[in-house]
């Protein structure tokens, strides 16, 4: 049964409200995580650590929402014994919330490294090289949140393609940093920081893809984890 996923329409309107509330909270959490990444990239772009403190504050809110949504999912499992699409919604949501929280953590990690770099001109220059990767990851995160909001398995597949480009870009960044380290061993410490930050951005992309896989499971009932993109496309027709 995969034509469309309906959240509402239950005989129990209270159940509709509970599910709708969870969905709204996930989107709110997504918005906060997006703001974390946005503020981090802003700091990098504008050479200003002003908004980095907000990234940390937002992370606390994100963590609280993660726990709240998890609790609500647990309550629904205990009280409603959801089945079919409702069950998949709760499972997909519970997993996606974990990924969102980790995206927040990665954004915070990058923000901390950016702040450190802002105190050090030399490494700050190297960090600038991450802006393009960061912007692409931000686009992917935005698209992923839209995919979840619309419960759209087709856009989930498109996002997977975007992540492949991000992986390629990350590889190019790594090659560039390795060459930099090879050229001059004085660069190693700064380059490693940048490499860790690049790694965090790449991980954000991976978490986005986990969320997309959850949406595909929710909408299509297909578990596409550990499946090549071509095979996923085949499966979804």
């Amino acid at each position, binding site marked *: *049964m995969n034509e469309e996923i*309906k959240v509402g329409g*239950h*005989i129990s309107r209270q159940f509709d409200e509970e599910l709708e509330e969870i969905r709204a909270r996930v989107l709110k959490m997504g918005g906060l995580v997006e703001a974390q990444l946005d503020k981090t990239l802003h700091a990098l772009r504008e050479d200003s650590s002003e908004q980095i403190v907000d990234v940390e504050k937002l992370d606390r809110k994100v963590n609280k929402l993660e726990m709240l949504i998890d609790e609500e999912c647990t309550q629904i499992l205990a009280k409603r*014994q959801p*089945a079919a699409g409702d069950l998949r919604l709760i499972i997909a949501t519970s997993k996606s919330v974990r990924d969102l929280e980790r995206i927040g953590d990665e954004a915070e990690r990058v923000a901390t490294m950016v702040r450190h770099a802002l105190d050090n001109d030399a490494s700050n220059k190297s960090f600038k090289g991450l802006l393009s990767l960061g912007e692409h990851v931000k686009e992917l995160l935005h698209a992923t949140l839209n995919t979840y909001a619309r419960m759209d398995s087709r856009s989930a597949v498109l996002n997977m393609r975007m992540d492949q480009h991000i992986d390629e870009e990350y590889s190019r960044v790594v090659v560039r940093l390795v060459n930099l380290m090879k050229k001059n061993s004085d660069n190693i410490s700064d380059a490693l920081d940048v490499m860790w930050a690049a790694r965090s951005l790449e991980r954000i992309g991976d978490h986005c893809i986990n969320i997309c896989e959850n949406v595909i499971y929710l909408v299509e*009932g297909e578990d596409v984890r550990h499946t090549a993109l071509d095979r996923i496309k085949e499966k979804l027709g």
Partner: protein
Amino acid sequence: MNNAQISKAEIVSETYQTTGSPLMDDPKMRVRNVDVFYGEKQAIFDVNLDIGKNEVISMIGPSGCGKSTFLRCLNRMNDTIDICRVEGELLLESQNIYDKKIDVVELRARVGMVFQKPNPFPKSIYENVAYGARIHGLTDNKVELDELVEKSLIRCGLWKEVKDRLDEPATGLSGGQQQRLCIARAIAVNPEVILMDEPCSALDPIATATVEELIHELSENFTICIVTHSMQQAARVSQRTAYFHLGKLIEVNDTSTVFTNPEHKLTEEYITGRIG
């Protein structure tokens, strides 16, 4: 046309095909093109279903969807209703159970039934179990009967609770014990299939869990068809689940599929509580 796209109106008015896997090789019972009428009113429409050997299959659906009517076709319990007419083919192994030559009493020993409300005979616990074996001529020998009663009660997990009061009236047992006694009575005549019509709806959760555990154990030796209003019970006890809607068999699938990713929109709507 994709079955998932059939609207409710079309389900009522048009010929249709059951979604999922209603048929199988070498089934215990084979149901083909079965229609059931109460007078002029048609209650079951063209049902095709195979019931596997030693499987537990659940029939679910809203009230009035025909699941109990269908269940009662499987051992001709509908014969007791004057205005009820059954058309189509129902085979037990390869034998047509609606053949005129069929002895209905013998059929009901082969296809036993457990009802919603426990209905022990107003006799002793012992007699409730021994009675069927006696009237079906399985044995009249006291020692053999004792053995049969003990074995049946052990299989139903009731032996330890009643072994010291076998001569007491069965009506003195608790609801859950009475229902297990009725199951012991059904299996004492060594049936091939056991039909259960909402067997736990009059029981508390503990007694329900005991009966569900019993169903699981009995499935090693018997084919069990269970009608239930509790979807969680269907999910817990059965390997396959059949969803009925307005007299039609909409979907038959592995229970895990039905409860996580049903194929038909109506099944999805019912099990998620959108229609009732």
